[in-house]
């Protein structure tokens, strides 16, 4: 007699690629690690504290707002909140008071993500939403940059890190202007090698272009990010900046300066490539990147602010549904549109 087997009925396919969303998130964190280490090297304990506050803020917010009984599914475990938190921290000045960093992370998760319906439904990049909130609320704290140093100053705080919430932080640390501000307001360019390796004042994780590119290259190699987006952004910025530079070399810095300074690298590689808030098709990704590139140079050169990456990405996030609508893939064996008209008529 044959053995009695209980067979499971389900529908095909029965094979599944093993890579799941938490794995993707984990690899994004791996790709960010070198950038995080560089920030610790340049800004010491302050950088770690800022990153830590953001992670605690984001995880707490995620947990509180997705507790049992809530309508939202919790994504504490899948790592997406941690990625959001690290990215936010890397865009903040290392000397920012920790309570502000914490608050920024809470806003990023709650207003940037959960209010829209949670992971996958937000229109704007949560990290940049958090940062935009901080920039609007604390314009001074978020544009006060401390000078770089090396591991010798590890324990030195880079600002009024432990300022109490809702007090005005003091700014007695040694501050300096970022390369972009220097260029914009004083017309002093910064050495390219300094920009490449990050030994300039700036946000916690935005200064070292080389490591950011390395992380991006790893993710692109593993196919966890749409390489068309950063490439399209960087090419557009380079072309636009070159054109301006050729028109007036004194007023407009060359493409290298634009590419390597400010938040452009981090924004192009890690922020603009957030799949939730960017177009799905390759053509859409190119258009999206070009839009960001143009906006970045426009804001930097003709706007009031020295830096425009954050607003450029947020604006293009808003345009994503529109881009998606016009860049749907052309299906296999698509019938020419004339024919459709016929059938309608």
């Amino acid at each position, binding site marked *: 007699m*044959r053995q009695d087997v209980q067979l499971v009925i389900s529908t*095909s*396919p*029965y094979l599944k*690629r093993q890579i*799941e969303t*938490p794995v993707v998130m984990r690899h994004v964190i791996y790709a960010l690690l070198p950038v995080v280490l560089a920030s610790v090297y340049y800004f010491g304990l302050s950088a770690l504290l800022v990153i830590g506050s953001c992670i605690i803020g984001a995880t707490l917010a995620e947990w509180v707002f997705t507790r049992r009984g809530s309508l939202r599914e919790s994504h504490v475990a899948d790592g997406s909140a941690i990625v959001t938190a690290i990215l936010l921290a890397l865009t903040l000045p290392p000397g920012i008071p920790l309570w502000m960093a914490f608050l920024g992370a809470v806003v990023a998760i709650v207003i940037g993500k959960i209010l829209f319906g949670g992971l996958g439904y937000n229109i704007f990049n949560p990290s940049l939403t958090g940062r935009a909130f901080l920039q609007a609320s604390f314009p001074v704290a978020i544009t006060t940059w401390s000078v770089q140093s090396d591991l010798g100053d590890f324990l030195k705080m880079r600002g009024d890190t432990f300022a109490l919430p809702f007090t005005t932080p003091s700014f007695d640390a040694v501050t300096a202007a970022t390369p972009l501000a220097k260029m914009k307001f004083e017309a002093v360019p910064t050495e390219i090698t300094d920009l490449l390796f990050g030994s300039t004042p700036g946000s916690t994780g935005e200064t070292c272009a080389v490591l950011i590119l390395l992380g991006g290259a790893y993710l692109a190699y593993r196919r966890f990010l749409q390489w068309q987006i950063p490439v399209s952004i960087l090419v557009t910025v380079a072309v636009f900046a070159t054109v301006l530079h050729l028109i007036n070399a004194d007023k407009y810095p060359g493409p290298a300066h634009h590419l390597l300074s400010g938040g452009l690298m981090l924004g192009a590689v890690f922020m603009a490539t957030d799949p939730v808030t960017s177009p799905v098709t390759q053509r859409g990704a190119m258009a999206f990147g070009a839009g960001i590139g143009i906006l970045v140079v426009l804001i930097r050169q003709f706007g009031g602010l020295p830096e425009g990456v954050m607003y450029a990405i947020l604006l293009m996030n808003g345009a994503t549904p529109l881009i998606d609508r016009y860049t749907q893939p052309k299906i296999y064996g698509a*019938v020419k549109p004339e024919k459709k008209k016929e059938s309608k008529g």
Partner: protein
Amino acid sequence: MSERISKSKRSFRHGVHPGEHKELTESRLLERLPVPSEVVLPLNQHLGAPSKPIVGVGEKVYRGQKIAEAGGYVSVPLHASVTGRVKAIEKRHHPTGRLEDSFVITTDFNSPQTLYNEGPIEWESPPLDELLKRVQDGGFVGLGGAAFPTHVKLAVPEGKHAQYFLVNGAECEPYLTSDHRIMLDWADSIYLGIRIIMKLLGAEKSYIGVETNKWDAIKSLAGQIPADLPCEIVPLETKYPQGAEKMLISAVLKREVPSGKLPIDAQVVVQNVGTVAGIGDYFAFGQPLIERVVTITGSGIHNPSTLLAPVGAELGEVLDYCGGLKENVRQVLFGGPMMGAPQQFLEVPITKGTSGILCLTDDQVKYRKEYPCIRCATCVDACPVFLNPSELGQLARVRRWDEMLKYHLLDCMECGACSYVCPSNIPLVQRFRVAKAMLREKAETEKAEAAKAEAAEREAAEAREREPEETAAE
């Protein structure tokens, strides 16, 4: 010889590459399943109308004898796969999960099981419509799994032209190796089949597309092409779904079948390599479609094998011949892991469309947590017909079926590449099937309602007409 192999490896855009797992059976030589004591032959083993029985219960039938005739043009006859006696014509479990009318034939073990009408069948002299009739008489259907009547595909409609004949030897489903075995063992039958089919189609050239994970088959086929046969072997990239008709056409010929149309609209006809070999054998020595090559594989079977099994052999008996199922088997599929059909009972018969039997164990069959769609577009880059499964999935989740049509739902061929790659474990293709079923149901209801309304109207009109007569009569 080497000029009969195309220089460059060809492929289609997008697609996925799951683990192949073909090593379980690819080096196993073909074995013939011992004649089973009973066969179950469903009347409905093909797409189209079921066959109609022409022999009754209790009658003696011979192996290869026609026992049911075609139930229409899109239908094929059925032949006894063993010599024996018809025990019953009754409802039996069918691999589709339904109960279907089936012949049950008890084998006569005293019979030598020789063919009923052995001998070659003339194919060079008869006119084309007669030749086509003979193909239908052989009971041939697509052996790749879809089981569409072969003669219907080989009939070129008025005003259309079949420039090329494509033989599908891609076998892109993981695990399956039956076509591989056929290409290694039956080159003569394949080339005779190609000759006959090219004559029917009036095609100028034929191609055999084979994935490069079967280089031995590519070389052996290329070495045996008859000098006068315009045929070329095309190595194809090993990628799923390379063997889907539309993908094969775009890989080999760099042309697309217009949406909603058939390959013949791109001047191409495609047949599975097993079907072609079967037709070759039929005309060579008169054996209709009564047996087929089946891969029995997967980690859940003791001895994975490639069997030549009579149509109608019971699944359980075939599995027992291969050493039986292992303890931890959880799923038994007819077909490959990407598009196969799950079986609930081991009492179902092997049918004409059964290309493989895949036994999956508990470590392969598990629940996966579904995460929200993060629009990562992995599915968009996998879809071989260039749909946007991400968007379709979001619409399906909120049951906006009608809107899915605008995103070309009906062009989805359900290959499952999107579900395979989705990092969020969203059952995309499964939801698309539901959407299609819902839309079909809706269309049917609307049609029925329209018919009802029309009938009511007609009745009312008739009543109006009758009224004056009645009054006049009064």
